[in-house]
């Protein structure tokens, strides 16, 4: 008799929806159906049962083909690579649990690795700005219960965080927002008329790359100063009108995404968005939040933060101190400048998401990729170690985009004999210890 597992945490995006229901087969091995998840989340759960899944580590041969090896062989090869390399890039961590990260960082301390997470190509700019000017933020629960002015700036939750709008930001009825969508004014600022913009009361089409100027104009308008006729393609009348409406709200929130962090200005765009939020607090209550994309990337920032004081790109290669310098210890820069000797990728796919020049450099180095599935990176790695899917086949702690930790649930059993991230990293850690005790470093 199939059973229903309720209150499952979705392991796809930073929204961490916690109301997923799965019907699971009698033997606890297959997910038969998924309820409440978005299209992407449902696909994530359904992927568990796809035929052709790799269940044992694979090693690349000289001719480019892969042969199956045992976990022991793969762990030994990985530990030897880590010990031999003076500087290893240990990148990823965003789709694994905080417990696994912690073990990974222990290995990095021993072998002198550089630990970096997906924020480096995502919200890294936001983290620089937050380090610079702080961040007046809140939880998603407060947004649901209080926010009546919601701004989406350079983000498109309809595509990237599909249930964000229905669970927290646009449609839900909350304690002080009993009218739901009707009680909120929604603003979308983007260079495209996105699907999110179609839900907005006001769409502000900014010229691509002119976000800093427009944010500056919002600050100017909020202080009642004069503006030029248009800023970033937006007429000044519209800016004054929107700012006046924002001031009338009881609680405002700015959600921002890659439209600010990837365009020219990077951290300065976020810097001024945070300063706009601060200015708006002279008139009403206002908050700002980064739309963290990759599931537990926030958790990686948290764990690195409390262990070393920096949220990403932490260089532990000096062994006795942790260093962080954007542009120097960030993954893409390290790879492009050929400054690492080996690469260890876990729970991510830089092959698909790093610029090609970084991957050309990476492909010339000894590489181990730990991922439940075949992806672009596994195919150019020396070893691919498959593991159980965190959030589906094993539990663990993850952080939502508003920095709320949530314990995820195991839904089904992993394929027979497959290790979890935690088990794998613990064994690599042990093997590293043995090699170092034998004088390997």
């Amino acid at each position, binding site marked *: 008799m199939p059973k229903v597992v309720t209150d499952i945490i979705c392991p796809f995006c930073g929204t961490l929806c916690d109301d997923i229901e799965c019907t699971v087969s009698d033997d606890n091995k297959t997910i038969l159906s998924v309820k409440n998840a978005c299209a992407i989340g449902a*696909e994530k759960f359904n992927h568990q049962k796809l035929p052709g899944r790799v269940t044992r580590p694979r090693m690349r041969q000289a001719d*480019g083909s892969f042969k199956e090896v045992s976990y022991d062989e793969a762990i030994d090869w990985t530990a030897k690579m880590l010990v031999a390399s003076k500087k290893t890039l240990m990148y990823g961590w965003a789709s694994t649990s905080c417990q696994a990260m912690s073990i990974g960082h222990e290995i990095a301390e021993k072998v002198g690795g550089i630990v970096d997470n997906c924020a480096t190509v995502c919200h890294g700019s936001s983290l620089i700005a937050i380090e610079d000017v702080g961040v007046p933020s809140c939880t998603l629960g407060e947004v649901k219960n209080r926010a009546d002015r919601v701004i989406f700036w350079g983000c498109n939750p309809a595509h990237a965080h599909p249930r964000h709008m229905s669970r927290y930001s646009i449609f839900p009825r909350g304690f002080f927002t009993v009218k739901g969508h009707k009680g909120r004014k929604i603003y979308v600022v983007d260079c495209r008329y996105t699907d999110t913009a179609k839900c907005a009361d006001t769409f502000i089409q900014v010229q691509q*790359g002119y976000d800093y100027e427009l944010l500056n104009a919002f600050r100017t308008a909020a202080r009642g100063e004069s503006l030029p006729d248009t800023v970033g393609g937006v007429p000044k009348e519209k800016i004054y009108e929107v700012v006046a409406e924002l001031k009338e709200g009881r609680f405002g929130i700015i959600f921002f995404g890659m*439209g600010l962090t990837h365009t020219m200005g*990077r951290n300065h765009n976020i810097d001024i968005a945070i300063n706009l939020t601060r200015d708006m607090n002279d008139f009403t209550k206002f908050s700002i939040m980064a739309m963290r994309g990759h599931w537990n990337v926030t958790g990686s920032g948290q764990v690195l933060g409390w262990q070393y004081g920096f949220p990403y790109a932490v260089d532990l290669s000096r062994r006795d101190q942790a260093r962080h310098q954007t542009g120097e210890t960030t993954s893409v820069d390290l790879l492009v400048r050929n400054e690492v000797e080996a690469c260890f990728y876990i729970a991510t796919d830089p092959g698909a*998401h790093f610029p090609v020049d970084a991957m050309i450099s990476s492909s010339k180095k000894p590489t181990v990729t730990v991922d439940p599935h075949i992806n672009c990176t596994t195919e*150019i790695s020396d070893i691919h170690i498959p593991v159980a899917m965190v959030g589906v086949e094993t539990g663990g702690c993850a952080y939502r985009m508003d920095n709320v930790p949530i314990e995820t649930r195991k839904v089904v059993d992993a394929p027979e004999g497959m290790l979890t991230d935690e088990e794998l990293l613990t064994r690599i850690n042990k093997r590293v210890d043995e090699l170092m005790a034998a004088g390997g470093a």
Partner: protein
Amino acid sequence: MEKKIKLNLITCRTIQQGVGMEAGKTSQKYFDACTIIQMHPDDFKRLGAWKNTNVRVSSSVGSVIVKAVETREDLVPGLAHIPMGPWANRIVPAYTYSTGEPCFKGIPIEVEVAMNEPIMSSIDVLKDACGLSRK
């Protein structure tokens, strides 16, 4: 003489790209979702191309073949969009302005019709760049 047009490129997530990615990086869904460039109808006219024609997109770091399509998420003329993935990243400059973030948005590109050129698979497009393609 084939016509070339200059555009400003952004790369972003789309829900189809997300679904394809979770279905598997080697899946048809992922291929269909990411091997496209979305352009404004005016730019199709400037290029002299039909919808759903293969085009070569070039930037300062390289070029890639994708299919030119129209979009329901309206663009302004001169702005184009390729969903994030290994195809888009063939033409994304790795320079980070000391922030760690490459230029994923606001890339100057040139587009030309390449009707008979095939689109590579996700693995091949990366292996080809890294010189790991099996001949």
